[in-house]
Structures are given as C-alpha cells and as structure tokens.
C-alpha cells in the first residue's frame, strides 16, 4: 500500500444541502395531522392534572427527581421499580420491530421527533424563504436586505420554537403551572434554565441545521432496520417493473403506439425534489430513506397530470416486485412468522407488566439481621436477636403497621421508639408515600430448644386497611 498518496485525500465529504420542495397529497396531509397531534401532546401534556389526594402532586405525568418518584396518571413508580421502565423500553423495541416488519420505517417517516420538528422547521423556512427553487436561488445570490431579513426572521422563529421545546421539556420535571410562573418571574431554579438552554440548542441545531444528517450519520436505527427487514415488509418502493425504461411523455406515446414497451417514469425528478433526505427513491431501498411517503404524493401528482395510473411509487414489497415481473398477482402478507413472533412478544411483555402492575402491593417490608452481635443473652437467660426492619408505604396517607413475628414458641417482638397495640404488637406509623426504618428486637424465652439458625416470619399488617405483608429471616442462637 502507499501512504503518501493517501495524503491528498479530502478529510471530509462536502454534504450537499437539501432543499425539499413542498408537496400535497394524502401522505403530506397525514404527516401534518400527526405533527399537530405529536406536538400538542408534547407541549400540553405537562399541564394535564390528575388528582392523587392531598399529599401528592396533581400532575398527570411528573418525573420528580428530587423525591425519587415518577408519576404517570394512576401509576406511581419508586426508584426500585425501575424495571417498569426496562419493560417499557423492551416493549417499545418490539413495537418498533413489528412496525418495521409490517410497513417499514413508520417511526422514522411519521413519528420520530427528528422528523416532526424538522418538518415544522421546514414549514417555517418555506414561509419566510419560499419554496425549493426560490431558496436555492436566494442562497446562491449575494447578501441583500431581503435575504438578511428573511434569513434573520427564520432563525428567530426557529429559536423561539426551540426555546419553547426546551421550556416544555423542563415542565415534565416540576409542577408545570408553578414552574411557568417561576420562569415568567425569573425565579425558577438554575437547573431549569440550563436544561431549557440545552434543549433549545439541540432543537435548533438538529431540526434547523442537521436535519437528514441526524438520520444518516447519528441514528443507529437505519442500520438495525436494514438488518431486520425482509422481502415481505411494506416499504416505500419505486415500481421499476412499471417505470422502466424511463422515457418522455411524447416518446412514451410514440413507443406505445408502435406496440413497444415504455415505462411510466418520465424522469421528472419530482420524487428527488420533495425528498427531505435528498435521495433518489428509484435507486431502490436504501439507508438514507426515512420512508416519509412524500415522493408518493409527488409522483402521484405527476401521474395524474400525464394520465397514467397512480402509485408508480407506493408502499410495496420486494417480493411483489418479483411476483409482478414473473407475471404473478401481487399479494400482501402482513401475517408472517416474524410478525406473529413480534406480536406474541409484545403481548407477553405487555401482559407481564400489566399483571405486575395490577398485583403490586402498596406496602413493602425488608429485614436486615444485625450482625454484631448476632445474638444477645439477657439477664434472665432469654436470647435476643436484633433486626433493622424497613417498611414501605406507597399510599398517600399515613398508615400504622402492627409488627408481629412467628416461628418459635414464646417469641416476642418489640421495636425501639414506637408505640404498641393492646396485644403488645409494636405499631410503626409510616408517613405517606415514604419508608421508615426501625430497630426491632426479637426475644425467645430461656429454655426454648434452639438450633443455631431457625427461620422466623415477620408480618406487618395495616391496622386500617388490613393489608398484610410478610417476609422471612433467621433467628440465630449460640
């Protein structure tokens, strides 16, 4: 190999700026609709209220990092229940796989925040700088007052949207109305401004400037998607069996009149002009295609004008392309082994999570045996073990738990610093939505036959609601 000759290689590939052209059609309308829904959810959700009682926040979705709680409508998650998030992520991955196996990159093309915000930023750009051709011409032209104010206004509006995006982000981490008031009076915590700044920057940079570069160079999903797709998955496809050979409208008419084959593609390049990643869909399935369907709308418009059937570009499968070439009728099979497996996995994980959620207890107990000393002989000869018992109360009111211990004859229990019931069970009052640790002393009278270690059961019962929770530990003897 030669090293010296590598020296004159360029260190970077200059990227060509993409100027997506506006387009209208059913896919564009669908994307506008989804854009409004997604953005409305993102910006307004923090203001949705959910009554949880007097002691808890009434925000429907709240990530309360200061108090280590996550509220999601009727669900309240404690830090040790982080596996719900794991389950949610697993579920999201399977849903992504299933979407991909059924109809390609639905996520990328319609729902991904990068796509949604880029679409919004493009609409702003179009409003100030006009459509594709006008933008290209202005970018080529020297600076002028007109160019300055249009560009300036665009960046200003972009920054406003980006700032608003960052502003909505922090509302998920604190009581939204309070934080809005604090932000308006400049009394919000410093962290809020820092995160608004970060989100403003990322939104402005990614949706305004990076755009398709994010999908092409930063996102791992196109690579994973390429490995997961198969011949039967619906993808935005150029039907080359119908489109080739590409000829002009007049030549096509002449060829058809002469009984010779002529493709429907007139090589108008509208599919390229509208593409947000600047690719040619006619090159076939490719990493850079986010499958937003805008080329379908563009091509259908042209096909309508020249009087040819629509959907020269459309959702189709690789297998159908081959079937048509072999003279077979196209079929779509959404129910395949892989879609069935993905659906089954979604049901399995979702079902397991639902079951866990429905049956989860609002009280928890954990016991830690004192190690030094393992046991203590009292003056009357009885034997005592000490434990640290932690009780969890996940309900929004204070709950009194009576603690009892069973497993040995004459076994007695007391807890340090708490009151007791009439039958001498210690009562541990646990504050709303918190946990409490108490030192618990378990005593066995003298003369009880004891092995070196025996299992005993700790039972905590809610004196009001009657909920009972149990756990086991050991009683240690000499």
């Amino acid at each position, binding site marked *: 190999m030669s090293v010296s000759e590598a020296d004159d290689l360029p260190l*970077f590939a200059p990227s060509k700026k993409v100027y997506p052209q506006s387009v209208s059609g059913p896919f564009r309308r669908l994307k506008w609709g989804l854009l409004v829904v997604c953005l409305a959810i993102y910006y307004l959700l923090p203001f949705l209220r959910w009554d949880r009682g007097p002691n808890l926040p009434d925000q429907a979705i709240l990530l309360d990092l200061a108090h280590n709680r996550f509220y999601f409508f009727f669900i309240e998650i404690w830090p040790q229940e982080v596996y719900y998030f794991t389950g949610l992520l697993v579920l999201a991955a399977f849903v992504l796989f299933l979407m991909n196996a059924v109809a390609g990159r639905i996520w990328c093309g319609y729902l991904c925040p990068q796509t949604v915000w880029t679409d919004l930023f493009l609409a702003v750009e179009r409003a100030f700088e006009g459509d594709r051709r006008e933008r290209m011409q202005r970018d080529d032209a020297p600076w002028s007052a007109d160019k300055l104010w249009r560009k300036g206004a665009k960046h200003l509006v972009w920054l406003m949207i980006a700032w608003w995006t960052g502003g909505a982000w922090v509302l998920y981490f604190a009581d939204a109305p309070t934080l809005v008031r604090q932000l308006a009076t400049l009394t919000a915590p410093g962290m809020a401004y820092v995160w608004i700044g970060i989100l403003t920057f990322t939104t402005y940079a990614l949706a305004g400037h990076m755009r398709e570069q994010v999908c092409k160079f930063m996102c791992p999903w196109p690579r994973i998607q390429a490995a997961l797709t198969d011949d039967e998955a619906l993808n935005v496809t150029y039907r080359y069996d119908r489109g080739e050979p590409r000829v002009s409208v007049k030549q096509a008419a002449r060829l058809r009149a002469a009984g010779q084959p002529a493709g429907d593609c007139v090589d108008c390049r509208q599919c390229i002009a509208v593409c947000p990643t600047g690719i040619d869909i006619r090159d076939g399935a490719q990493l850079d295609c986010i499958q937003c369907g805008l080329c379908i709308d563009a091509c259908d418009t042209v096909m309508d004008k020249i009087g040819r059937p629509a959907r020269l570009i459309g959702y189709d499968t690789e297998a159908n392309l081959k079937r048509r070439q072999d003279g077979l009728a196209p079929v779509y099979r959404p129910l395949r082994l892989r879609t069935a497996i993905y659906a089954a996995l979604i049901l399995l994980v979702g079902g397991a999570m639902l079951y866990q959620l429905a049956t989860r207890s609002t009280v928890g107990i954990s016991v830690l045996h004192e190690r030094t000393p393992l046991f203590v*002989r*009292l*003056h009357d000869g009885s034997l005592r073990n000490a434990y640290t018992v932690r009780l969890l109360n996940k309900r929004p009111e204070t709950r009194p738990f009576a603690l009892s211990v069973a497993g040995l004859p004459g076994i007695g229990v007391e807890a340090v610093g708490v009151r007791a019931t009439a039958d001498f069970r210690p009562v541990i009052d646990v504050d709303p939505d918190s946990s409490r640790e108490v030192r618990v002393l378990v005593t066995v009278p003298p003369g009880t036959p004891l092995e070196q270690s025996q299992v005993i059961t700790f039972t905590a019962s809610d004196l009001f609601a009657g909920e009972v929770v149990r756990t086991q530990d050991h009683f240690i003897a000499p």
Partner: protein
Amino acid sequence: MDPHHEPHSHEIDAHTGIATTGHEWDGIRELNTPLPRWWLGIFYATIVWSIGYWIVYPSWPLISGATRGVIGYATRAAIADDMAELQARRASQAAGLTQASLEQIKADPNLFRIAMAQGKAAFGDNCVACHGVGGAGGKGFPNLNDDDWLWGGTPDAIQQTLQHGIRVATDSDTRISQMPAFGRDGILKRDEIVAVANHVRALAGLPTDAKADLARGRQIFADTCAACHGPQGKGNQEMGAPNLTDAITLYGMDLPTITETITNGRGGVMPAWGPRLDPTTIKALTVYVHSLGGGQ
C-alpha cells in the same frame, strides 16, 4: 497486480463508483467514505476545547504537583467544601437536639431519627474500639445490647457515664467505686477465696466443686462481698457492683476466672467523653446506646 503500479487515490472503484483511498492489501482496495464536514468540525472543536481545559483545570504534571489551572479548582478543596456544607447542615439539625431533653428526643420521631443517625456515627468513631461494632462488647468490655447494666441503663445514667466516664482520675464526677484485690492485698486467704468463688457459682445456679466448703463461702460472702453485691448477689448499680446471679457476665463465671477476680479485683475504666465530645453528640450517643436493646 503489477507491484509497481499503486492505484491512485482518486481512482474510481468500478463496482461501486466510489473513489478509493489508495490503500491495497492483496488486491483488496479500500473505498474512501469520508466523514461529513460537521463531524470533522466537531472533532476539531473537541481539540480546541481540550486546550481550554488545560488552562482552566489542573492538568500538566510537574516535578512536585501539577499546574493549578486558572479557576483554582482542586478535588481536595471540593471535598473540603462538601464536608463544610455537610457540617453546616448537621449543625442546623443538631440545633434541635441541643435544645431538647432526652425525653423530648424520644417522643419526637424526627429528632429521634437524627439522634440515632448522629449517635451511630459517633459510636463508630469513638466507642467501637472497646465496645465493638454495634456495641457487641467483649471480655471486660460490656455488651451494650443486653439488659444488664453495671451503672444503670436509664437515659440519665447512660448520659452520666458517657459524660464523666468510669474511674477517670481527672474527673470529680466520675464513677469511682472499685472492687478490692482481696487476695493480693491479703484480705482473704487462698482457701477462703476458693470457698467464696464456689459460693458465687452456687448463687448463679452453676455447679460447684464437690470438695468446696459452701457454708464457709456463704459466710465470707455475707461478711466481705454483700456490702456491694448485696446479700443475694443481685448487685448494686450505685456501686457499679454487677449482679452475680444472672446469665450475663463481664469477665467469665468459670472457677479460675472468679478466683482471679477475687484475688486481683476488677476495675475497668472508660474515658470521660465530656471534655472530648460536644454535649449534642453525647446526647445522641445516649439515645443510640439506650436504643440498642437494653435501655431501661
């Protein structure tokens, strides 16, 4: 391939239409797929950033130490700041403890929790050397988890012991009474010691030596030991005299150990913590020790 002909870097690979880098291994050529411009820009930006880092933070190692950086940041100083902040926060919590009496601390769950936490920490720093982790004790060092107390197990008695210690020469309020060395000082003779040692075992319900003169032992105990340990050997916390009849022993209840105890006496010491620890810490230690299990 002709070894004299290296593929030129701009040579286009026929199959893919992409330029090659000029690197070739056994006929396999590397395609040139350069990074986007912004990626390269970020790479350069990180280099520039690192220069700023060198200037702002300690970075370059010198013979002794390192360059200090313009903002004077040091991890040690940061820890010192954190510790100072912790102390300040503790002080504000401790203010509640300083005001409250032992009874008030016990009655207030919040104060109790703070006292327990502080007491546990202070115990670990000051007490475990003798009393063991968790107050488990050892021979000659009382187990603080049991319910047998030499000098009393009420909160006030515990606080008094902590404050003034046991047999501290420099503290006038210390616990002073001491068991005499009955053998060494010639108060009891050898056979008398054996007799009374056997009687002590009998008091505790333990088997005695068959040849022992228990009647004599009982008489000697009544004459010599009962003044402190009581006629039944039940002890006296005013004198720090242990109960000899229960299941708990500080030094051991086997015959040689009892004989040794009577011969040489016993008088364990504990430092007075009053001059060493602040009153709030003593209070927290009192609450902690009282809560270990034997508190009265």
